[in-house]
Structures are given as C-alpha cells and as structure tokens.
C-alpha cells in the first residue's frame, strides 16, 4: 500500500493499532482542508501492528489529547522533507473537553456550555477526577 510521504507536515506515529480514528475525531482532523492519511494496522517492529496518521500541513496539535489516548505516540514534525522535531507525548495533568463525566448527578450532565474538566490523580493507573463532582474515571 503506497501513501505519499509528507514533505511539510506532521506524522503521528506509533499509535496503538485501532486508536487512529479516535484520535482523528478528537483532533477534529475532518475539519482540515489539507490531505490527511489514516493508516491502520501498519507493520511495527516494536508493537507488531500500529496506526499512523499523516497530516499534510503544519497545524497546532493538542498534545494533551494524544497523551490521553496513547502516551506512546510520537509526533514527527517535517519541513521540506526533513524531520526537524520529534515530540513524545505524556499523560496530561489536566484534560479539558476530551472526556465527559459519567456521573448522572454531576452538573456537567445538565448544564450547557461548561467545559468538561478533569485532573490526573493516579498516573500509574491512569485515573482522572472530574473537577466538578470529584468522581473518578479510568482511562482505557
């Protein structure tokens, strides 16, 4: 399968196989006017299989979203055909409008127009806590 290389743009590499579409949606890549390639189940020497997303432009990326979905993802910034920066993401300390609180008693379940805010409370077990109701959510 051939997909053009990126001359100037971003490559999201080492995405856990099957998670690329989640990232595609969370980053709202469907709203971009440039070319975006989503490669699923590519061969990976490290993980066996992986997903890759290629974006044919240098855009601002929400690295917190990437860190939340999969902290193994690498972000390659490419300019004029050369890799100029490789970024590693981490599980973010705060999440805003990435996940929703599932507590039916939480104000976020009814109030319109407020941000869904979470803070990381347990890095090892990937547990976040809602800033409004304090109910915790484990990241899958």
């Amino acid at each position, binding site marked *: 399968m051939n997909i053009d290389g990126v001359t100037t743009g971003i490559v999201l590499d080492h995405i856990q196989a099957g998670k690329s579409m989640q990232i595609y949606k969370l980053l709202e890549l469907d709203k971009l006017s440039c070319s975006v390639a989503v490669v699923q189940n590519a061969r990976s020497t490290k993980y066996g299989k992986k997903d890759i997303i290629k974006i044919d432009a240098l855009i601002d990326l929400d690295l917190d979203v990437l860190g939340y979905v999969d902290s193994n993802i690498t972000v390659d910034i490419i300019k004029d055909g050369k890799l100029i920066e490789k970024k590693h993401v981490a599980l973010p300390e705060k999440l805003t409008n990435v996940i929703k609180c599932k*507590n039916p*008693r939480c*104000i*976020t379940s009814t*109030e319109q127009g*407020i941000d869904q805010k979470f803070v990381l409370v347990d890095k090892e077990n990937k547990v976040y806590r*809602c800033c*409004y109701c*304090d109910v915790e959510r484990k990241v899958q």
Partner: protein
Amino acid sequence: MEKRNLIKISDLSAAEIDDMIALANDIIANPDDYAEACKRKKLATLFFEPSTRTRLSFEAAMLDLGGNVLGFSEASSSSVSKGESVADTIRVVGNYADIIAMRHPKEGAPAVAAAKSIVPIINAGDGGHFHPTQTLTDLLTISREKGRLSDLTVGLCGDLQFGRTVHSLIEAMLRYDNIKFVLISPEELKVPDYIIEKIKDAGAKYKEVTKMEDVMSELDILYMTRVQKERFFNEEDYVRLKDTYILDPEKMAMAKDDMIVMHPLPRVNEISVEVDSDPRACYFEQTLNGKFIRMALILTLLGLDKNGKKTA
C-alpha cells in the same frame, strides 16, 4: 478585596476556620454588637432543592446581622423550571444581591456558579457532594462542646457514601492533630474511595466497621446521619438500608460519659427520641450553632467587621 467563595471546606485555611470559630463565639457572647453589621446588604438564598432548615438558618443569620434576604426555596418557583441554566441564574441574581447561598441537587453546581458570579457564592449543599457550612457548624459545635478540635476519636455512622456532611467533616478534621475516624456503615453505603485516599494521604488513622455496638466505647464524638431517600435511584435499596442503625439508650449506655452525639438533622429513625434527654445529645445546640457560624461566614466573605466597615 478579591471575591471569596465557599464551595468546599478546603477553600478555607485552618487559620481562617479558627478565626471564624472565634468570631462566632464572639457573636454568641455579644449578639447586639453585630445587629447592624450587614445593614443594607442582601443575601440571596437560591434553593434549587428544598431544605427548609439550612435556608432558614442562612436567612436568620443575615437578619440577625441587620441585613435582608431574598430568593426561592425550590426550583419550581424559579426560572430553572423554564430551563434556565445555573450560570444565567447566577449572573442575574448577582445584580440584586451582595452574597448568594445556593443549594443544588447537582454535584459541582456551586463551582459553576462561583466561576460566573460577581458576588461571593456559598455552597449550601450540592447533591451528595459537599456541604461546607454544615461542616463549619459541626466544627463550632465540637469546639464548644469538647473544648478542642484535636485528639479526638470521631465515629461517623449511617450513610457515609452519599452523606455529604460526613465527607466535608472528614476533610476538615484531617487538618487537626491526632484524629481517628471510626466509619460505621453498611457495605453498600461506605465512604467513597476518594475520601479514604484523603484520609490516607493525611496520615490519619481510620477503621471501617458495620456494627455500632463494637465501637461505642471508643468514641469521643458520635456523628449520626440519615439514610437519605432522595439519594437513591432505587426505592428497594432505600427501604432495605434506612433502619440499619438506630441509636437508643441501650447503645448510649455503652458510650463514654463525655461522648457527644451530633446529627445534621433532620432525623428519621436513626436516633430514638429517648436519647434527646441524654445530656450527651447536642444536635439541637448544633442547629443553633449553625446560625452563628453562618453569621461569621457572611461577615468574613463580605469582608465586614461588626460595625459594617470593610476589613483590610
């Protein structure tokens, strides 16, 4: 002065709580000195969920400070019934009042209000989450009845899962030295994990038990709570759990002579009326203390002294 809110008890430092208790004690000793401290000031009591006791306590507090009160006592008599958001309601009411006390069935609603309000917001209870003014009431009561807030074994009994008074009280007591918690509840109504984590993080001692009789003799304070029907989605669970613990004279006989019994009220069956005449029962004094500490809180958040002058 920067706008202050009271959303959760940890919004106040231990020193601020001590100051507020001292102020409440001064108000109790010299009520006339404070009779005009809030003259021409208005408190709005926005009760999206009914609670006559808490609302009246806030209103009595403001009236005793010489101020005025306005507001509503249930959501059906406000614009909320027309679909208005908390944020919009608060923006509007902030134009009419100097300070707002709000109760809301949704957890975190006062935090949303505080973010939008131009006047101080007091959380008068948000669902099963926090109820910081009850905690201030409890601290004032413990301080007056026991003469200290440290070196105490505190038994908390009943609905410890949804009982917000319990969560706030634990958080507040963790700041004092040598506090041991004895958590008495059925398995289904145990203290949530995030509160247990806070106890552990603070290095305080605690134990969880299901039988009251096993621990009565250890306690300096027994804090009873009601199993609240409105917190259950399932009527069957409520019926099954509501009468798990009933404090009666037999159980009181197992307790220390100087143990005190507290309850945020209203009670249903969890304390038999025979206990009311026991000198260790202090739940009615507790409600009176609630008014005095709310007077101290209103003055503190408005930044006013007893003469109605702005403090530094």
